[in-house]
């Protein structure tokens, strides 16, 4: 590459000493700094509302996923606190986001947020568990990109309702063509991979956390 640096005659260099690169790019510097500051301002202004939206989206599902409370407790307000539960099993550490729901002090149940690889892309689900973390009380699909019309049916209520009441201890299996036994889930016709993916995600999450949650439940119950 030729070492001689030619004067930039394409740039109308009115004042030669203003020739260095930084000066020509002054507009870019100014814009970059101004926009950086502007966006940071927007972030601090809107940040909390966006975070609230994100949290509400998951928390608004939690009541639906818990076991239906009976009697007086039904109307009491739910307090939900979320914590990250690191789990290491079989040489693999995974972090789960666990929401603990309490109704006026009494443990109402757990909701575990987990995700895994579906047919086409990630599937993010919420699994509701009973206080002793032994029975599944609900399932909600937060985010999925499965094939619309086929795999996307995992988000529909009828299919998800199959999970309610299934025992958490034994791993669930996917069965084709109805006749669902104690721990069997009927696959969606034409979308067996998606159905199997969701069941696998739920199984792994339960296998990872149910023991620890049950222990916590034992400790926490007054």
């Amino acid at each position: 590459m030729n070492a001689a640096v030619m004067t930039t005659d394409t740039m109308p260099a009115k004042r030669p000493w203003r020739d260095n690169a930084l000066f020509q790019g002054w507009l870019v510097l100014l814009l970059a700094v101004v926009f950086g500051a502007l966006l940071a301002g927007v972030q601090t202004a809107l940040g909390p509302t966006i975070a609230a939206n994100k949290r509400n989206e998951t928390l608004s599902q939690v009541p639906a996923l818990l076991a239906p409370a009976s009697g007086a407790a039904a109307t009491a307000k739910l307090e939900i606190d979320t914590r990250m539960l690191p789990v290491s099993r079989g040489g693999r550490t995974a972090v789960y986001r666990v929401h603990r729901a309490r109704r006026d002090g009494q443990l109402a149940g757990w909701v575990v947020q987990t995700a895994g690889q579906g047919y086409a892309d990630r599937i993010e689900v919420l699994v509701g568990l009973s206080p002793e973390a032994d029975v599944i009380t609900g399932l909600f699909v937060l985010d999925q990109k499965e094939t619309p019309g086929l795999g996307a049916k995992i988000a529909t209520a009828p299919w998800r309702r199959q999970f309610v009441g299934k025992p958490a201890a034994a791993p669930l299996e996917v069965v084709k063509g109805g006749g669902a036994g104690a721990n069997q889930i009927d696959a969606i016709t034409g979308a067996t991979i998606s159905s199997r993916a969701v069941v696998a995600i739920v199984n792994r999450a339960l296998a990872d956390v149910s023991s620890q949650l049950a222990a916590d439940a034992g400790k926490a119950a007054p």
Partner: protein
Amino acid sequence: MSTPSAAQRFVRGILPENPVYRQMLGLCATLAVTNNLKSAVTMGAAVLFVLVCANLMVSLIRHWLTPHLRIVIFTLTIATFVTVADRLLAAFLYPMSKALGPYIPLIIVNCIIICRCEVCAAKQGPLTAVADALGQSLGFALALVSLAAVREILGTGMWFGFRVLPAAWPDWVIMVLPPGAFLTFGLLLGLANWISARRGGKEEA
């Protein structure tokens, strides 16, 4: 070569120089978000907001643009306004922001905006630039809606979520999938060319 006035720019933007059907710009967003009408309309609104702000900003600073940093400055301005739009959408219209997902940031590289900045805003005054932005984004929104209407009704038999076709309609799932987008847009483009050729318009696109 007379530089067109604000009104001309506005009118041209919608049909004669429709950014999607005539200039073939912004195809990434056109194909991606038009599997349902709601996201198409929101994308149109987002592009309107960003295009107007970007055109305004660029036309204000057009005298200090240096040739070899021109593109960098345009993209920087557009990226800022898109981030602002994205944050506003996430704060106030969260479900829609989730539906549009990755395609909002792709407005930054939407060819329409950079092209309008280069062609119109960098050369003319703020008023013409804004008029041009309005025209172009309306044209863009029109194209999006036309495509989304066809794809959603064929794919799911619904418009904006309301069932239009009887439930017995076998959903053409392909319409909501990528191949459907290509096919529908190709056919619509052919139709547009045919109509304009029949109406004795100037040469096809």
